[in-house]
């Protein structure tokens, strides 16, 4: 992993506005007075691409920009490497304002700091796969041997070893985009911009690519700005998500924050048909587990169940390691026959880990006699899954969802893996 400098904000976008067309001054004035995109188009003929966007992207995170088509995502991401010059505002890359850079300075930033992956791959059809991946190195004047070495390594990373001498048109869409990704990786930049990089791929391949990107990211820790119009994709790969509408950013937050607390109706509408079962995990819906320690007798266990009005209980050791479950009926029988808890506990209690998605635990929950236990990697009991709560959460009942406190006051300098945990 690269060591990041003290500055934690890798990219800082300050009040960036992009107006297309003439009359940009008037349009900006109107924007300042609070006019919206449609009014400005009517009054001046100018199109607002991006409107006063302000946000920070942290080193090492995957920052997703999401919104419907035409909401300004592509324009915004292009202001980050100045493929589009913003009409107003600043973009700081590692603290340096890219909007004020001279041509050669800008070129240096594009060569060394930021690389980009495009929706329609944008490969060079007259060059082989290897030559495509070498392109960014070649134009820096890097020697043939070294650049070939780097390009081959990048191709290996994306699983395309052996395709070096093919032409892009000989490859499938998914493979072409791997070339696009390898080309961007070969330059070894800190920042990776991906404009709808997977949108042109069919759904199964798209999932694969998302997984692979996450896997690559876990070892590279680049700062990735990922554009998508697909909420599922945003939720799957984003550490944080910015939602855009009509050129403005309407909400920024972790996937959970956006799902659970949509900041306005637009976001709410966006998230309303999300398949929650693919987003929420056991962690979100589990309830407190009632336990009894193994050295206690069946009488104590039965008494606790009676008091709490429940029909089964979990048996743990002193460290809260899950040993098994016990129903009220079994407890009563043990009292009659004089057996200990050790003798009668049901070791076949169904378990899941905290990060299991709801979609993957349905079956277990619906079949379990004793509620499914949620455990951590050390087999410690964390909670239980009550059927009603799981169904409630799926129905969008917010009270059934645990909001994890640790996400909210997360320190800004947390490493990548830390904010990944909350999902």
């Amino acid at each position, binding site marked *: 992993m690269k060591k990041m400098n003290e500055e934690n904000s890798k990219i800082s976008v300050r009040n960036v506005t992009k107006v297309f067309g003439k009359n940009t001054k008037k349009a900006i004035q109107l924007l300042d007075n609070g006019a919206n995109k449609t009014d400005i188009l009517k009054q001046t003929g100018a199109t607002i691409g991006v409107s006063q966007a302000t946000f920070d992207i942290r080193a090492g995170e995957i920052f997703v920009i999401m919104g419907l088509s035409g909401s300004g995502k592509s324009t915004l991401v292009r202001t980050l490497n100045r493929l589009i010059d913003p009409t107003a505002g600043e973009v700081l890359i590692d603290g340096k304002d890219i909007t004020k850079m001279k041509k050669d300075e800008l070129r240096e930033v594009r*060569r060394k700091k930021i690389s980009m992956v495009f929706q329609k791959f944008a490969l060079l059809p007259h060059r082989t796969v290897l030559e495509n991946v070498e392109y960014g190195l070649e134009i820096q004047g890097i020697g043939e041997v070294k650049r070939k070495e780097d390009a081959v390594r990048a191709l290996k990373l994306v699983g395309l070893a052996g395709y070096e001498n093919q*032409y892009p048109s000989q490859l499938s869409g998914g493979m072409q985009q791997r070339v696009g990704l390898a080309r961007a990786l070969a330059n070894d930049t800190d920042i990776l911009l991906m404009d709808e990089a997977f949108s042109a791929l069919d759904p199964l391949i798209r999932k694969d690519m998302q997984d692979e990107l996450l896997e690559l990211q876990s070892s590279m820790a680049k700062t990735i700005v990922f554009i998508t119009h697909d909420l599922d994709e945003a939720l799957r790969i984003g550490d944080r998500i910015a939602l855009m509408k009509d050129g403005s950013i309407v909400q920024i937050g972790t996937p959970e924050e956006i799902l659970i607390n949509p900041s306005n109706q637009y976001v709410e509408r966006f998230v309303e048909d999300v398949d929650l079962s693919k987003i929420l995990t056991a962690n979100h819906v589990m309830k407190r587990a009632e336990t009894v320690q193994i050295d206690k007798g069946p009488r104590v266990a039965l008494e606790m169940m009676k008091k709490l009005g429940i029909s089964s209980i979990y048996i743990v050791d002193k460290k809260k390691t899950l040993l098994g479950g016990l129903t009220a009926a079994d407890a009563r029988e043990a009292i009659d026959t004089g057996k200990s808890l050790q003798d009668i506990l049901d070791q076949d209690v169904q378990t899941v880990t905290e990060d299991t998605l709801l979609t993957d635990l349905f079956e277990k929950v619906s079949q379990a006699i004793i509620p499914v236990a949620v455990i951590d990697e050390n087999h410690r009991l964390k909670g239980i899954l009550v059927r009603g709560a799981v169904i409630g959460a799926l129905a969008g009942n917010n009270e059934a969802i645990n909001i994890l406190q640790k996400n909210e006051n997360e320190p800004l300098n947390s490493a990548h893996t830390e904010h990944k945990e909350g999902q």
Partner: protein
Amino acid sequence: MEGLLPKLPLGSWIDVFVDWLTITFEFLFDGITVVLEGIVEGLLAGFEFIPVILMIILITALAWWLAGKGVALFTIIGLFLIDNLGYWDPMLQTLALVLTAVFITVLIGLPIGIWASQKNGVKQVVTPLLDFMQTMPAFVYLIPAIFFFSIGVVPGVVASVIFAVPPTIRLTILGIQQVPADIIEATESFGSTTSQRLIKVQLPLAMPTIMAGINQSIMLALSMVVIASMVGAPGLGAEVYRAVTQIQIGKGFEAGIAIVVIAIILDRITQKAGSRKKGRKK
């Protein structure tokens, strides 16, 4: 018929202007004459040095390599026919004239096309100029050509170049501007300089279109050979012209066929050369 207003003395203005040009730039026109004459005569000397049979084999081999068996077969039959009819030497003169004109056309057209493709302002000046050049009857170019370059092969080359250069320029602009915007964006995003973008991306991708332009220029230059012969350029054109003025239908037809044969050979070879490249790369 009298016009409504006194006639504009446009003709005499142009006369004055051309006179001024001829005198002021005499050294330039003399230099151009020397260079063009040198190229045409050098080529011709080279062609004539090669024995007829070897020349036929060489051109046929080139046709085979670039354009395939069918074209090669046509080439060998066509060239033997020309030799048999007794037009071998005029044919070589025509070839030297056309190739020189095309060489100059590419030399001028390609850079102008590239420049215009990069700068919208340039394109806006060049495009109407090309329209003008293409709609003006080709004969008209002969007059200033004679003035500046007297008579012989040089004014013929110059008139051919003026007539033939527009497609090369147009299709160079088109080919470069046709390169998809996202490929240009990608090239920019990696920090290419303008010349890197041009040489490594735009020109290679535009090459099939540029070749199509050059092919059209070759055809236009060939179509000028009869007109060029009016200012004294030797070759097949001169044979046709003589036959026409002496009303010798049979002779005119023979020389005409020789021109058609050359035209088809040049067209097929350059056309296939352009598309062959594309086929391999795609």
